[in-house]
């Protein structure tokens, strides 16, 4: 009897580790890959016969004249697109809750954008908003635009609005996807209570529903931020020649025919990983504090 109880207790102690094990194995594989990449940033490339640690590449990267500009441009892109995604996502998810989303609505509004690869979305946006895209053509018909060069083409615009448009199209539904299930339950359960107590719907939304969804929203925000900060495809195709987003710099170095330049690329990637990690830690701190406050 006692033995059984002890066994059970032991089982309970071991259980979480066993449950975590497969996930941790996957993460370990991931980290193994990352360490390989990070080491390249320190000049360790066994396949080229280089095994000595050097800070040369980091130094080269950190002293680049265009680094500060690139970091701030990337930061701007990531922050703008994640804030945009957050705002749009909240609205979309509230709307979806309100209409009691049917399968079809969810499919069209949320899942199709999730499915489209970013590069496909670039194709969408270019065909709409390039100088000769459909939107300027419509404006041309209305007599507002004379020639393609009169329209602020999405391609290579210095404000990066093409990049933001693509991310908005992709990530607003992503944020909605992350929150809609939770929001609909929260608004059903607590919203009714608040409304019964006489709170206006708007007030209920901002004082009850939104705070309860905060955790999920913050997570979605972080995911979008980290992604927008680190992905090269969209800013490469739609971003301006100067300044270049940080991941684009890394991508160009990565593409350099001299394989040794991958060390520079990896050092740049290291800078990106550092920024996103700091952002993530900040997020966890906020989360912790909130956990205590509750």
């Amino acid at each position, binding site marked *: 009897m006692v033995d059984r109880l002890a066994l059970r207790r032991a089982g309970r102690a071991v259980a979480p580790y066993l449950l975590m094990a497969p996930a941790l194995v996957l993460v370990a594989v991931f980290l193994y890959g990352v*360490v390989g990449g990070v080491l390249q940033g320190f000049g360790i490339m066994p396949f080229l016969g280089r095994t000595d640690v050097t800070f040369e590449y980091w130094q080269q990267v950190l002293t680049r004249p265009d680094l500060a500009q690139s970091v701030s441009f990337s930061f701007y892109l990531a922050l703008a697109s994640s804030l945009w995604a957050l705002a749009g996502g909240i609205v979309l998810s509230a709307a979806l809750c309100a209409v009691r989303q049917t399968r079809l609505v969810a499919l069209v509004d949320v899942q199709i954008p999730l499915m489209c690869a970013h590069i496909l979305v670039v194709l969408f946006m270019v065909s709409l908003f390039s100088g000769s895209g459909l939107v300027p053509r419509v404006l041309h018909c209305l007599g507002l635009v004379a020639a393609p060069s009169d329209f602020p083409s999405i391609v290579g615009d210095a404000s990066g609005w093409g990049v933001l448009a693509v991310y908005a199209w992709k990530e607003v539904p992503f944020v909605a996807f992350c929150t809609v299930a939770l929001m609909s339950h929260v608004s059903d359960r607590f919203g009714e209570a608040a409304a019964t107590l006489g709170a206006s719907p708007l007030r209920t939304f901002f004082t009850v529903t939104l705070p309860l969804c905060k955790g999920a929203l913050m997570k979605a925000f972080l995911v979008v931020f980290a992604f927008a900060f680190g992905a090269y495809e969209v800013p490469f*195709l739609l971003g301006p020649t100067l300044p270049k987003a940080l991941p684009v710099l890394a991508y160009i170095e990565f593409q350099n*025919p001299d394989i040794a330049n991958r060390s520079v690329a990896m050092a740049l990637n290291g800078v990106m990983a550092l920024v996103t990690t700091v952002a993530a830690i900040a997020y966890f*701190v906020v989360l912790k504090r909130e956990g205590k406050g509750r």
Partner: protein
Amino acid sequence: MKNDTTEAVLLEQNRIMTRRRFVGLSGASLAVLMFGGTLAGCAGGDEAPAEGESKQDAPAESASTDTTAADSAAADVDFADWDAVLEAAKGQTVTWYGWGGDEARNNWINTVLAPALKEKYDVTLELVGMDINDVLTQLSGEMQAGVEKGSIDFIWINGENFYSCKENGYLWGPFTDYLPNFNDYIDPESPEVLYDFGSPTEGYECPYGKAQLQMWYDSKAISDPPTTVDAFKAFCEQHKGQVTYPEPGDFVGTAFISCLIAGVIGKEEFEKLSSMSEPTEESVLEIVQPGLDYLRELNPYLWKEGTTFPADSPTVATMYADGELVLNMGYGAPQELVETGQLPESTRSFIFDSGTVGNSNFMAIAANAPHKAAALVAINEVVSPEMQLSIYEDLSGISVLDMTKLPEEDQQAFADVPLGETQIPLDELLAHRVSEASGPVIPILEKLWLEQVAQA
């Protein structure tokens, strides 16, 4: 040992982060925990490959099971004996890695070359479409892991990458001497065969095709295309905001600014760049400065006033096709695009009187190619007069063969191929051909452009 360095590195990062105070106390402890986790991860991760090492031969073994007999024969094939090569290649499946975004070329490989190889030599050709940089990543990864029988047999390679591949021992060779068609029909002394982007090929590459930059325009919209750099500048002024070029870094963009620079400083001066093996920023600048000045002067008349440039040539091509630009440029004539209706019938091409840059593209065999015999057979077939003629007919690709070495009837066959409306006669192209800058010069040129033209 690897772990120690990582630890140092991670601890270092860790310290920086705590100092940031961004995080506060709890954040710091979390960070420590996280990097502890990272370390644990590394330790865990390191074990996996260590275990795997004993199995290192496993992939090679499994790869060879499909062609056991042929493969074991290939191991000790005397490649100099062509019959033995043919014998060894029989039944093998050979993989060809190269850029996969050209529908016409993919179709040609799959519907003309592959069936011919199968029928004549019982060799199955598998085309794998990949960007050359990804091929390199793949290859260097295999090298790093010490895979003796890799996944890549031969590669459609470009000159910039060839140098670094050969330097690092990723290529197998020299092999061109083994190829009957190379020996019979290709001029081994031609500089376009001896050098690829300024680096000596030394038999590690077999030419595949020649290409030369050409500018495309719609003859309905433009009556006389600008054939000198001065005329080009006037042309840009006249079509303000409707001309641009891909950002150098894209190979078409680099080639186009090379043409303009060559037009400004002269062909001979420019070709100094193609033999530079250890260029410095200063030595390149000394030659190209007037060209860069010219490019900077063009900026105000270009698309978006030259404040920004499209990132790659496909973007420029779509802008041209949609009518946002009046000029496009590419390696070759747009015959195929006109025939498929993507560009109007009135499309024509032109080159500068001062010449346009041209290059040869090549095929190379991976050092760890599992089917070297079949790769040799396939490469040999690509440079056969029959296939080169087919490339010329179907893809308007310039042949790498030395016409004077061909039998009369083959020469006639080449001459008989009707020239498309968009195409420029071969002899005219070859008479206005400028050699491309050498591999090491290219990144410097791109950097100079970025600093002096884009930032201006």
